[in-house]
């Protein structure tokens, strides 16, 4: 399994029936394809849809039914659509059980930076700031390092998405939780040792006596 699939599959295990969940672009989108059998969740697309389904079969795309990247999707039975004020009311108002986003950096206190690299990339924050501020649980799906540098850092040097600490970061090496204002090593990926995770992480990790292996 490659890094992205490990991350997506582990995050999919956090999904429970009945949850309202928003998946971001990139690795988070893959989470839907690893939904455990028997689990039924409502996926929200912030452009105004609850109950988004997979990509339509060829020739079955509907121009007015798209995901937040503007690509054609489908709607599952029981889906609902609404305007952007309602969509972000759901997000900010605490009605969204979980959001899964990509990340550029997460610091030791769990603060996420994921929307711009000054001087290089200024796409805009889109819905990310509202999602991180308002969702009940915030999960970050990202590779552990980029260009040999840890993305789990002591302090973010990139502009923050929110002051609110995320709940979990899942990488291809580890699951890190941020429950008590510190970064705690919660799980290691199969075949990865605690020492390897520490060696690849800039942030100081709290390491409990026993660190379980990620179940996939």
């Amino acid at each position, binding site marked *: 399994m490659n890094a992205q699939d490990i991350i997506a599959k582990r995050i999919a295990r956090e999904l429970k029936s009945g949850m309202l969940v928003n998946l971001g672009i990139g690795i988070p989108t893959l989470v839907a394809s690893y939904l455990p059998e028997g689990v039924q969740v409502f996926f929200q697309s912030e*452009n105004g849809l609850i109950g988004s389904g997979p990509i339509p079969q060829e020739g079955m795309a509907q121009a007015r039914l798209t995901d937040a990247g503007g690509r054609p999707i489908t709607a599952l039975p029981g889906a609902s659509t609404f305007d952007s004020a309602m969509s972000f009311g759901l997000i900010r108002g605490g009605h969204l059980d979980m959001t899964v986003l990509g990340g550029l950096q997460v610091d030791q206190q769990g603060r996420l930076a994921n929307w711009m690299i000054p001087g290089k990339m*200024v796409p805009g924050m889109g819905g990310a700031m509202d999602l991180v501020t308002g969702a009940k649980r915030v999960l970050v799906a990202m590779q552990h390092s980029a260009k040999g540098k840890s993305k789990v850092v002591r302090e973010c040097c990139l502009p923050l998405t929110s002051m609110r600490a995320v709940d979990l970061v899942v990488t291809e090496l580890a699951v890190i939780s941020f429950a008590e204002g510190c970064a705690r090593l919660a799980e290691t990926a199969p075949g990865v040792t605690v020492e390897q995770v520490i060696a690849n992480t800039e942030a100081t990790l709290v390491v409990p006596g026993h660190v379980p292996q990620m179940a996939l």
Partner: protein
Amino acid sequence: MQTVSLGHAVSVIPDGASLMIGGFMGVGTPECVVDELVRQGKRELTVIANDTAKPGVGIGKLVSAKLVRKAIVSHIGLNPETQQQMISGAIEVELVPQGTLVERIRAGGCGLGGVLTPTGVGTVVEEGKRKIAIDGKEYLIETALRADFALLQAFLSDYLGNLTYALTACNFNPVIAMAANSVIADAEHIVPVGVIAPDHVATPAPLVDYLIAHA
């Protein structure tokens, strides 16, 4: 409400106007109105919308034609031309969190001076804004937005201008319909009064100033 030709509807928009335009990555954007803005060469526009779509689609066409002076949007990541014009200084871009943007517009349309939101507290978004604490929690004061014109894409309009929207093409459309001095609507289908049940009207007819007649 007047039913007018596309050319007439766009002719009432002066250079330098502020436009709220419906759509999310071009889905729910009145494409014919955008094309006519380009054809008539309306310049120095301020565009308030979710995003600038991508080159060749929706608001992206206005950007490519260099008709936009300022964009108040949440996302420009899928339109490299907006980013290039921002870097060169040709377009001023104000990036606003999406939920904040739609609430600022909603406030503008509902007679409110603004909204209090926790989104952006402690980030670059709070720069230059007032903060207020309520019950121990910090909020930013985000001021209301209004525009000279709202350009809507509806699914159905009846002869009076009652509107419905389709699926994810709804997005900002019913919100901007409240927040502009003049509202121009294009509908995919124009239907007799009564076809849209009262319960299903999303934008009531009195909000619509111009409905574009089908050629």
